[in-house]
């Protein structure tokens, strides 16, 4: 299985733009009010740093996934132990993503359809792509879907230009202050952290040395798009109203009206967001199953897909109400700490140790 650098770019764009656009904006507005876009921009910059760190770490051993190189660097036991948080995060995270997706679709399109049916239908599709296509299939799908996602996001922005009022974004800074702005950035953590997939994906890329620039570009494009959306939502609904809406960007799509003629386009936009979710869930599913396979030394990693799918389905239907997965889960202290450990501390640890080892080895050889 081989994917190109360009496919990495599109995978990251799809996986980050859609979920952030569709569901994760409300906590941002609640924390930072009209400065939510600053929070988002700070979150995006932090995301760039994290992507840099993660890709750098993976490039220490460009032929291995984190399951392998953690063991190469830190020894068998510690290496195996350190991967456990990732597996837990991947499973829980996927469960939450699925639930968020399900709730969103349930609200937006299929009110009377039971939630489980929405989730099962979608999960089956992702399982199919992962099983039949592997990362190659995902990469190729992303190449087709990515441009469509970008087009849809831009379209919503352009078509709403007539109804925006730039005054609603002012006064900048004074209403929230740096503490609230940083708090808002924390709410973007789950979004920023999506580049962890690179810990597993790097060995599949045909030219690993070009990974870095493609991953960084993917991150940049999606964070510029989402920051733009946040800015636009603020200037259309104002910070107070946006903070009360559960899906502000969705409402923004529903707000489009061009000359009483082009209206109610949000269904189309939702469908395109679903495409993005499709890539996100598939790529996470692949990453999870592949590393699980390596972790348990299963010969064919595909065998882990079905059990994982069942676990995910259960995780997704467990939360009783919508707000648990969509509003509370991303904000909880433990979620944030967990994500922070996974995207910053462990990669940093592995990188420092691996880097020192390499330096040490070369200096030994030199002498």
């Amino acid at each position: 299985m081989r994917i190109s650098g360009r496919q990495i770019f599109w995978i990251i764009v799809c996986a980050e733009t859609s979920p952030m656009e569709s569901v994760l904006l409300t906590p941002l507005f609640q924390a930072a009010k009209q400065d939510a876009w600053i929070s988002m921009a700070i979150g995006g910059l932090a995301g760039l740093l994290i992507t840099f760190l993660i890709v750098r770490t993976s490039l220490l051993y460009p032929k291995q996934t984190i399951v392998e190189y953690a063991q190469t660097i830190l020894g068998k036991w510690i290496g195996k132990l350190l991967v456990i948080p990732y597996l837990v995060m991947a499973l829980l995270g996927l469960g939450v993503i699925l639930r968020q997706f399900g709730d969103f679709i349930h609200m937006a399109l299929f009110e009377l359809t039971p939630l489980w049916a929405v989730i099962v239908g979608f999960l089956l599709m992702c399982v199919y792509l992962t099983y039949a296509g592997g990362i190659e299939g995902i990469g190729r799908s992303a190449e087709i879907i990515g441009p469509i996602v970008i087009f849809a996001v831009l379209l919503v922005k352009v078509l709403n230009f007539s109804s925006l009022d730039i005054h609603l974004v002012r006064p900048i800074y004074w209403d929230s202050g740096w503490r609230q702005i940083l708090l808002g950035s924390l709410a973007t953590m789950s979004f920023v952290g999506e580049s962890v997939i690179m810990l597993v994906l790097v060995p599949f890329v045909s030219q690993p040395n070009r990974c870095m620039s493609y991953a960084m570009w993917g991150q940049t494009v999606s964070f510029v798009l989402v920051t733009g959306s946040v800015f636009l939502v603020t200037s259309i609904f104002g910070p107070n109203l946006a903070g009360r809406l559960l899906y502000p960007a969705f409402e923004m799509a529903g707000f489009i009206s061009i000359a009483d003629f082009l209206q109610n386009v949000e269904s189309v936009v939702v469908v395109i967001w679903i495409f993005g979710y499709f890539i996100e869930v598939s790529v996470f599913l692949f990453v999870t199953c592949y590393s699980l396979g390596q972790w348990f030394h299963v010969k064919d990693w595909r065998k882990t897909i079905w059990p994982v799918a069942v676990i995910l389905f259960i995780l997704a239907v467990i939360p009783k109400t919508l707000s648990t997965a969509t509003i509370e889960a991303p904000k909880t202290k433990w979620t944030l700490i967990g994500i922070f450990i996974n995207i910053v501390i462990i990669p940093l640890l592995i990188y420092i140790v691996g880097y020192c080892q390499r330096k040490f080895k070369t200096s030994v050889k030199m002498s």
Partner: protein
Amino acid sequence: MRTFQKALFHSGMILFCMIFVTGCWDKHELNDRAIIMGVGLDQGDDDSVIISMQIARPSGLGTNEQPENETGAFEYVESKGKNWMDAAQHSAFQISRYRFFGQRRVIFIGENLARHGLKNMLDEFSRDTQVRLRTDMVVIQGGEARDQLKKSRPFERVPVLSDIKLHTAIGGKSGDTTFRDFLIDVLSDGASPTLVSMNGNQVTGRAVFNSDLKLVGYLTMDEAINRLWITGGLKQYVYTFRVPQFNGLVSLQTSKFRRDITTKIVDNKAHINIALSAVADLQENDSSVNMYETHHLQTVQQAFNRYLQKSMTDMVKRTQEEYGIDVFQLGEVIHRQHPIQWRDMKNDWNRNGFQNAQITVNVYTTIKRAGLTTLPLQLNEGDQSNS
């Protein structure tokens, strides 16, 4: 055998997926839907509420011919209930189809309900997933919302469309962002919500709400237009006023409205200066003066500025004294210009802050053109006055 099994598995999968593709749980064919175009809300007696609906009749919409019966292309339904959802549920007993609210274009509010307050109405109308924020909202001055929905209108097959178009034409801004603008004002400390008011087929002015969302009074049509200039939505308007020096009426087609609001805070008291400017064309001249003489045009211009200044100042004074609430979104301007001082002012703004604010209005208009004639055609040379 293996290929057969594989084919069997694949076709099984495809069939399984088919179950979901149909989406049969949410299936509502177009001819099973009742498309609700407008909703009217009224306060009933003894705490009940009355919801009335105007439903488009698709068969009447398609052709360009006149509908056969007088009622036009719509149906009217009304129902009563303990609260809005209850009343809406009761309407289901009268409508044979699935009620679809996604196309609802306008909400009418009866005056009685508006005086009772809109607080519990807003919740239902923003929580419902079918509903869009792009909706017009109108207060029926001195009447009931349901009467507004019963009547047909001269130009539109679906009567509510006429009201939206009317609102858009008179308001300058597009009428259908009203609900959003209303919500933004409701959630802001520096503005009081207002809505356009109508009666029958006529726009009558603007309804003013206090922070409890209770109707406290109206602005007249002239005031509503002036307010729109201050809040920045006016596109064009014909002002008619008397020029005392010429002893005659003059009409000016005014456009390119601009406003520049500067605020100052002295001892927790707001000093607000509103500078308005516009460009005008002379449209009608009932005085006996040749408008192609520059100094005459300048006299008109001065009179126009003075006239506007007076009517603006009178309006601001009246709202300050009579209502005491900020219908001009001036608090938001202070908020933007003095964010730090605003923190201490915002809680008091709609009680005393606005009332005690010192507000001055200056108007600077320029008359650009005087039309195609010099002296009014009906006058002879000798009648020309040279005041």
